């Protein structure tokens, strides 16, 4: 039974989740970054998971450059980047990182009373594309740095009760 849900602090939740993944499974550092200049990657790998349930729907998108995707993959698999065999290994690792971010978000939503389920991850890869979602999903974009590589996590959520997401909304 949902009572008065607290505002969900998406930015700190995502940063903590990312820091956990980077420190525990990649032995890499990560820190928040300014949005500008926006990362402009010639080739992008995007891992996403969706959440849907009672009172909330949405998705988490992890956008990384091809080169950061390979670095992350090599770190998680404990191999050198040149040892990565094909795109499938990279896709699997980026999917798993997106899955861990989505899992943390889903947990927070459930604990706040928004019971929901999570989808299995999907991957989008390409050079010149944008992800359009329904305007009511209200995207939040968060930028991070790992080494010199800037990357983006976007969270799109729609609540029946908008105050749960943004305490300033009426």
């Amino acid at each position, binding site marked *: 039974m949902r009572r008065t849900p607290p505002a969900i602090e998406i930015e700190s939740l995502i940063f903590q989740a990312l820091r956990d993944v980077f420190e525990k499974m990649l032995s890499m550092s990560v820190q928040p970054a300014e949005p500008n200049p926006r990362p402009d990657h010639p080739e992008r790998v995007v891992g996403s998971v969706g959440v849907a349930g009672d009172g909330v729907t949405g998705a988490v998108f992890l956008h990384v450059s091809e080169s950061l995707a390979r670095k992350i993959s090599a770190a998680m698999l404990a191999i050198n980047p040149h040892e990565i065999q094909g795109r499938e290994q990279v896709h699997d690792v980026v999917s798993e990182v997106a899955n861990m971010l989505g899992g943390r978000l889903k947990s927070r939503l459930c*604990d706040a009373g928004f019971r929901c389920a999570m989808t299995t991850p999907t991957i989008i890869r390409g050079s010149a594309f944008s992800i359009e979602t329904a305007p009511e999903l209200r995207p939040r974009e968060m930028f991070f740095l790992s080494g010199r590589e800037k990357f983006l996590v976007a969270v799109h959520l729609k609540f029946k009760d908008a105050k749960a997401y943004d305490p300033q909304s009426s």
Partner: protein
Amino acid sequence: MTLKVLSVDDSRTIRLIVTRALMPYDCVVIEAANGEEGLAAAAREKPDLILLDITMPVMDGVTMLGKLKEDEVLKQMPVIMLTAESGRENVLHISKLGISDYLVKPFRAEQLIEKATRTVPLQKKAAA
């Protein structure tokens, strides 16, 4: 005694991390990519320990666990759930499913070994 560990996860990366973490120990790791394959492998291989992911295509980990618990032979197998969901509600839910333990992703290899050692008599391989 060489133990059999069944790793059920749709992520090849996680199965690889599990296999690598268990490499210094006297065990063989059997892999399955979803709950359906996991059930078949459990019935065929009779593992000493099952490491079971929750969110998977075809058949998820909770469904697989339910089916294990319905089987007179398979229900005795210890299961450690691997979950990306660390929330209070999820932890309460999975702890009621009759599992031995659970491990939240992301995890370090040492955390996996610690949980596995608490559940089954995992021994380091004898030096050659």
